[in-house]
């Protein structure tokens, strides 16, 4: 109960019982009536505050009695809400109790009937209130809105226009003026123009919006705004046709290429989808039987499409639309990206030979060499993510060039042999000793470590 007297007076003066004044003190009847109402209205304060102090929290953490809690509570008419009812009941009984003036309360009647202002104290709020209560106290709150609107003002000050913003003038002008005149008038009034654009977006008048952009020569905005519409088209063929109309639009050079790609990609996806759906339902193709498709490939990003094609169409010749190599060429997918995606797809299928082939290059002398544009540490991470067996992992961990990275990866993925060999090469006896505790007792790895540790051939550095 930390409400101050200032608050009481503030409440009193600004409450809705304006008819009551202190001047007719003689009229006992009205006084009593008012005081009774005033006491009743005290509930607002007393009860609320007690709620606050005794706040209960339901399991979801909504305080019991909070608004979002209560929506659930009152919306459901079933009887499954005992707890809440109880709570409300107890609250009600409490509040009826609170209607009685409590002698100890700070809100005793006497304090309400004390004079309006006492010089010196609380001059802040109460003084300000005594003359024109509601109005100056919070002019925003009390003032009739009518006083606030002033349409006759000029266009330029931004807040006047703001009032008009969603307002009648623009709507009126839009209705009455021909487009050409309206656009021309607005062109010199940038703020109003912004509002019209916003308004058109909000009411979804795409056609007029495009006309406006065209008039203003905002070509790129026009193009983007047109392109955005494709998101609302569900049917893939219609969407494709729509994207086709976007191709010639005045995007930046970079974006033009992307839009073209977007169109081509969807075109491809439609072909692939039709074909694969057919294959899958026919049930003749092994890959589709073993790994049924989880979703359609339509509208998926390029990299996802590449993954899909590496998964289901890896061996196809370059001439077919669904082959990975074809996709790579058409969309100029960089090597790195291609290798990453193919690796992930083939590893998922546990096609280790394909993985191997991905990194094997032959030079002109016919020697084979392992090379990874993405770095073998990444290869290892991806293989591990796809639960590759240790032998496979080991092979690639060994190809990591940086010794520290290699050792870290080997330790992380439990490629014991690699760790042991690395320690030997580094002549790091301590680390090898420490690693001994990590391998299984009596395993071949332990024997290997013991053999090394007792070997007299190695000149340990520590």
């Amino acid at each position, binding site marked *: 109960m930390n409400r101050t007297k200032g608050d009481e007076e503030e409440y009193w003066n600004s409450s809705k019982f304006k008819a009551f004044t202190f001047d007719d003190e003689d009229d006992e009847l009205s006084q009593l009536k008012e005081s009774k109402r005033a006491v009743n209205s005290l509930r607002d304060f007393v009860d609320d505050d007690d709620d606050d102090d005794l706040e209960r929290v339901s399991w979801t953490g909504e305080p019991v009695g909070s608004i979002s809690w209560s929506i659930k509570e009152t*919306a459901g008419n079933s009887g499954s809400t005992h707890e809440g009812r109880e709570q409300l009941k107890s609250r009600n009984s409490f509040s009826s109790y609170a209607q009685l003036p409590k002698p100890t309360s700070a809100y005793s009647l006497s304090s309400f009937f004390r004079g309006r202002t006492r010089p010196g104290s609380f001059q802040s709020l109460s003084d300000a209130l005594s003359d024109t209560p509601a109005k100056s106290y919070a002019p*925003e709150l009390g003032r009739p809105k009518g006083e606030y609107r002033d349409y006759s003002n000029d266009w330029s000050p931004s807040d006047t226009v703001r009032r008009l913003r969603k307002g009648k003038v623009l709507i009126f002008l839009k209705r009455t003026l021909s487009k050409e005149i309206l656009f021309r008038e607005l062109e010199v009034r940038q703020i109003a123009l912004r509002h019209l654009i916003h*308004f058109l977006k909000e009411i979804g008048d795409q056609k007029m919006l495009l006309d406006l952009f065209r008039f203003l020569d905002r070509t790129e905005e026009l193009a983007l705004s047109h392109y955005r519409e494709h998101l609302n088209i569900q049917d893939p063929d219609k969407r494709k046709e729509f994207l086709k109309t976007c191709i010639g639009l005045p995007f930046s050079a970079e974006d033009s290429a992307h839009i073209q790609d*977007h169109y081509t990609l969807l075109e491809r996806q439609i072909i692939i989808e039709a074909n694969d759906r057919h294959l899958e339902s026919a049930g003749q193709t092994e890959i589709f039987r073993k790994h049924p498709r989880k979703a359609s490939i339509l509208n998926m990003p*390029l990299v996802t499409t590449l993954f899909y094609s590496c998964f289901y169409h890896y061996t196809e010749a370059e001439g077919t639309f669904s082959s990975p190599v074809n996709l790579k060429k058409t969309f100029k*997918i960089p090597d*790195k990206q291609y290798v990453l995606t193919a690796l992930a797809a083939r590893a998922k299928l546990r096609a280790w030979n394909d993985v191997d082939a991905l990194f094997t290059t032959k030079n002109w002398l016919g020697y084979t060499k392992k090379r990874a544009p993405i770095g073998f540490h990444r290869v290892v991470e991806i293989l591990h993510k796809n639960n590759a067996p240790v032998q496979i992992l080991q092979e690639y961990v060994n190809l990591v060039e940086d010794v520290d990275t290699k050792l870290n990866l080997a330790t992380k993925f439990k490629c014991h042999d690699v760790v042991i060999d690395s320690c030997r090469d580094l002549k790091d006896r301590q680390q090898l000793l420490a690693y001994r505790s990590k391998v299984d007792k009596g395993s071949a790895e332990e024997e290997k470590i013991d053999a090394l540790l007792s070997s007299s051939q190695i000149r340990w550095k520590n």
Partner: protein
Amino acid sequence: MAAHLSYGRVNLNVLREAVRRELREFLDKCAGSKAIVWDEYLTGPFGLIAQYSLLKEHEVEKMFTLKGSRLPAADVKNIIFFVRPRLELMDIIAENVLSEDRRGPTRDFHILFVPRRSLLCEQRLKDLGVLGSFIHREEYSLDLIPFDGDLLSMESECAFKECYLEGDQTSLYHAAKGLMTLQALYGTIPQIFGKGECARQVANMMIRMKREFTGSQNSIFPVFDNLLLLDRNVDLLTPLATQLTYEGLIDEIYGIQNSYVKLPPEKFAPKKQGDGGKDLPTEAKKLQLNSAEELYAEIRDKNFNAVGSVLSKKAKVISAAFEERHNAKTVGEIKQFVSQLPHMQAARGSLANHTSIAELIKDVTTSEDFFDKLTVEQEFMSGIDTDKVNNYIEDCIAQKHSLIKVLRLVCLQSVCNSGLKQKVLDYYKREILQTYGYEHILTLHNLEKAGLLKPQTGGRNNYPTIRKTLRLWMDDVNEQNPTDISYVYSGYAPLSVRLAQLLSRPGWRSIEEVLRILPGPHFEERQPLPTGLQKKRQPGENRVTLVFFLGGVTFAEIAALRFLSQLEDGGCSEET
């Protein structure tokens, strides 16, 4: 719940009471029993100013969320819609009203627009043929909602987007209105400082509104000395970086909305014996976070690295307190112990909650990926390698990490390099579009329009100048016992808060050059006070500054402001 509002230097309960009163007045206009149909978005903000009990006292018997088709059955005289002025909501309301008319007793309909009535919406209702059904159509200016002893919010998530992408400045108008209400309650603020285009506009609107009210002289003794209006676009860097305060991390990982957070329930299962782990809650655990909770008030603004030690210290204190019972011999001592029990139990509950939250966060912060991300962020912010394609970002794209994360990093790099080199930008764009879908051309364009992502123009990188002048990067940062605001990002001092700090001492004149580099004008306005209200400053008396972020603020920035206000003088922050 309301008590914590009065802890701060400015008693925000006054504001809360004012908005509550207005709500009561509206409800009383619709005589008889009522049902409220809520725009679901509004329940959060309203929950911060009123409880169901308040509505119930004004004969609100039912509450529903706004949905299509029919209203649920309710035996009430009035149906009141609490909605934002959105066209799509008007369609739903019309559907509700039309399907209502066909059955049963007639009822009175009302609409309360929050925060403003909109002619466009009313026009839509008229077009749908239902405008006449509404008896009261009013607006409820819930602009600034008191959050905490020192924090107000407008809860308008989209303000930045609206201002910078859509050129819609309605939210600025609301901000100005909110500030006028605030001044009506707390006195005219004598000095207004600002930086940024939107800040300028809000100040202009405030001055204009003040002129329109010349009739009624505000005669309240001013509580605030200064108002600082800051445009979010002056400092785009800060919100892109990962916040490292406790509250900031909760927000980064789980998101705090209307001061509530939803957490995975597993960690909070009630540990009752014999429960055997059955009926584990599946619903998210919802907790309210504010300074009313003693422990939270203490740790919310700390760097996360300093939270653990506080929690363990608290745990020791509490268990020691519980052990006290063995020492209580006399009846008097036992009585005293028992009287402290409720408080101790509350403290224990709160400690248990925050320990669980801290564990959840720790799982994230100790992960390798979090560390890598932080390293890259910190490199960018200290100006290392901002001009070439970053390997980590490339990896993130290749592994298809969340698009938000990727974009945040790319934008951070762009901001720290005053725009990316065209080649670098094109490379990122291409990678993003190929991996996440071509439709993100639109996303990228929006980022460019907002200035978050851009090509470098003029070939000059201004960021190093800004960084050095404003000391944005501090190498020696003390996370446990901070001496500088940079602790909130473990090294990076939020630019926005640095501006606030420099304004109070030694003043902006010392950094004119940098202010010119940052976007938008900077300005100072005075609102003359009648002589009776001018403060006679006692030596050593602190000033109270209201910092208003137009377009949002991070929890870490709030933490930094609180830290500043402890360090030197009063502060009060707020966001939109």
